[in-house]
């Protein structure tokens, strides 16, 4: 008898299984409850927490969670170090800002277009991964990020230069006009849910398994017949798509976009959030987002030390726990 079937047979005889956490986690009632209760909590949150200050912090957490989950796809799943994520975030922000204020587009179409434009630029920048690898690719993303920011600053006729685009009107989706912090919270929650669901579907699909194989061992994956170059480009593009969505959300949420929203520092902050939470695990970056946002808020009184603290956390985490708090794997290869 094979070991597997033997085990199966033993369970069938009805021995009492002790209620450990593992068996509990397999219980369907528990599984549904473990999903539904936090979901319910999220939906009811603005009714419990009416203070707009705290709600505002949570909204920024959601924004960064979307960004970092996208970046995690690039960093943790495709193994590409991208220091230009803020540029795609900015592309989304500027697309929405310009289309709403100049062309009178509705918010929903702006949101979708922002994502698509970020996706297209992502694929465009991903194309060189066929030839340019490792550190050079990192350099390429830095260069792209800086070009984006500098052009946004210099092209006054189109982007209004360093002043940025101001006065983005209140967005509305299908008659639901989004005004209060609570409204923005729900919009963010919908976007975050969309991000989580699509990403977990993607990662658990055949496509997802292929790019995990590439991360683990690129050479072995290519020998198995996976077109590594195409996968990397597509994964990079998809990661950027979520950054575009987040940028669009930012534009309507803070009603302005300026080039200084999308500096290299911002890309670094996202990377450190992903790393603190843990790379290569779908939801681990959210832990990083929560920790870093709370730390930034906590140290707001000494905001001139902000980058110093972030830098120290960055070095300390990587020296002592390179896989992050909840991560499964550090960089390989």
């Amino acid at each position, binding site marked *: 008898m094979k070991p597997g079937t033997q085990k199966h047979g033993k369970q069938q005889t009805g021995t009492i299984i002790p209620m450990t956490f593992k068996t509990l986690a397999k219980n369907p009632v528990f599984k549904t409850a473990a999903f539904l209760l936090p979901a319910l909590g999220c939906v009811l949150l603005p009714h419990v927490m009416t203070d707009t200050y705290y709600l505002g912090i949570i909204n920024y957490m959601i924004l960064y969670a979307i960004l970092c989950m996208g970046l995690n796809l690039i960093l943790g799943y495709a193994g590409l*170090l991208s*220091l230009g994520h803020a540029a795609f975030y900015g592309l989304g922000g500027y697309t929405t800002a310009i289309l709403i204020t100049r062309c009178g587009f509705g918010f929903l179409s702006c949101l979708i277009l922002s994502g698509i434009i970020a996706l297209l630029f992502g694929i465009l920048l991903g194309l*060189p991964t066929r*030839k*340019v690898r*490792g*550190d*050079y690719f*990192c*350099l*390429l993303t*830095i*260069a*792209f990020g*800086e*070009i984006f920011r*500098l*052009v946004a*600053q*210099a092209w006054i006729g189109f982007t209004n230069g360093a002043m940025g685009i101001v006065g983005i009107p209140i967005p509305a989706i299908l008659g639901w006009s989004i005004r209060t912090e609570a409204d923005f919270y729900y919009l963010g929650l919908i976007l975050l849910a969309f991000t989580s669901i699509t990403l977990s579907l993607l990662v658990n699909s055949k496509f997802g398994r292929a790019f995990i194989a590439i991360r683990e061992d690129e*050479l072995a994956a290519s020998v198995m017949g996976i077109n590594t170059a195409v996968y990397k480009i597509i994964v990079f593009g998809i990661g950027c798509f979520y950054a575009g969505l987040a940028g669009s959300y930012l534009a309507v949420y803070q009603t302005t976009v300026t080039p200084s929203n999308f500096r*290299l*520092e911002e890309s*670094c902050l996202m*990377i*450190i959030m992903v*790393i603190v939470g843990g790379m290569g695990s779908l939801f681990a970056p959210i832990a990083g987002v929560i920790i870093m946002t709370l730390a930034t808020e906590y140290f707001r009184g000494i905001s*001139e*030390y*902000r*980058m*110093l603290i*972030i*830098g*120290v*956390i*960055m*070095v300390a985490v*990587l*020296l002592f726990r*390179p896989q992050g708090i909840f991560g499964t794997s*550090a*960089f*390989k*290869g």
Partner: protein
Amino acid sequence: MFFDVLLIGIMVGAIYTLVTIGYSMVYSILKLMNFAHGDVYIFGTFICYTLLEKYQLNPVLAILVSAVLGGILASFVEIVAYRRLRAGQHRMISMITALGAAYVIQNSNELKWGNQVMAFPSILSAKTFQVFGLTIPMTQIIILAIAVGLIILFTLFLKYHPYGKAILCVSEDIPTASLMGIPINKTITMVYFIGGMLGVAGGILYSTSYNAVSLAMGFRGTIIAFTAAVIGGIGSLGGALVGGMLLGICENFIGVYVSSSYRDPITFLLLIVILLVKPTGIMGAAEQTKV
């Protein structure tokens, strides 16, 4: 006009070469992008500024002191943030700690000196002289001479001094060099020290030629060093020279003839184009993938 721009370009190019050498050398040994390089050099430049402005120190002494302090800071960063990660961890990890170290230094600089542009005291004579009907400021010639002198000195050091030879050995192959009895950690710390010193020298010369020093020059210096190193071919001394010169000259022509606000974007575009066409740089040898 054309020759004025060219001359300034060559001078800026020589300064860029100085800044690039330290960065490129670190890369050739450790394959590590030292993001902290620019912030170290601006730290040294700020020190020099304070020594000159506040304490009225002799310029030569001030430059020496600040170069040594910059070198010490660079090696300190290596010991704290990079050394532990050298064995066993992926290179990307130490690149991210490098970025963290860069932020720590940058923020400390900002706390001490602020982020305003400050006037750097002019330490060289403001005389000009005429050659072939061109008016050439003395400052430019002196800066060019110092930069070229330092580059030559460093090349000689690498070629003939035992420590320089040790650096070349380590950059060739770390395990073999270690078997030959070369102390790896000490050599690498020395590379950072020298790189930091040359960077600070470059930073001071740059600030002298533009009479300005500011925090933003630090990060820009890092990017410039990257770009120049990649354009020329990373890891080689000749590459640093070609890349630095090309970048300095191109930048000045773009600044004068195209537009000064598009100078940096075009520089970055140049970097992207070079990366796409020949990722190993103009002077670089092709890298082979191990199977």
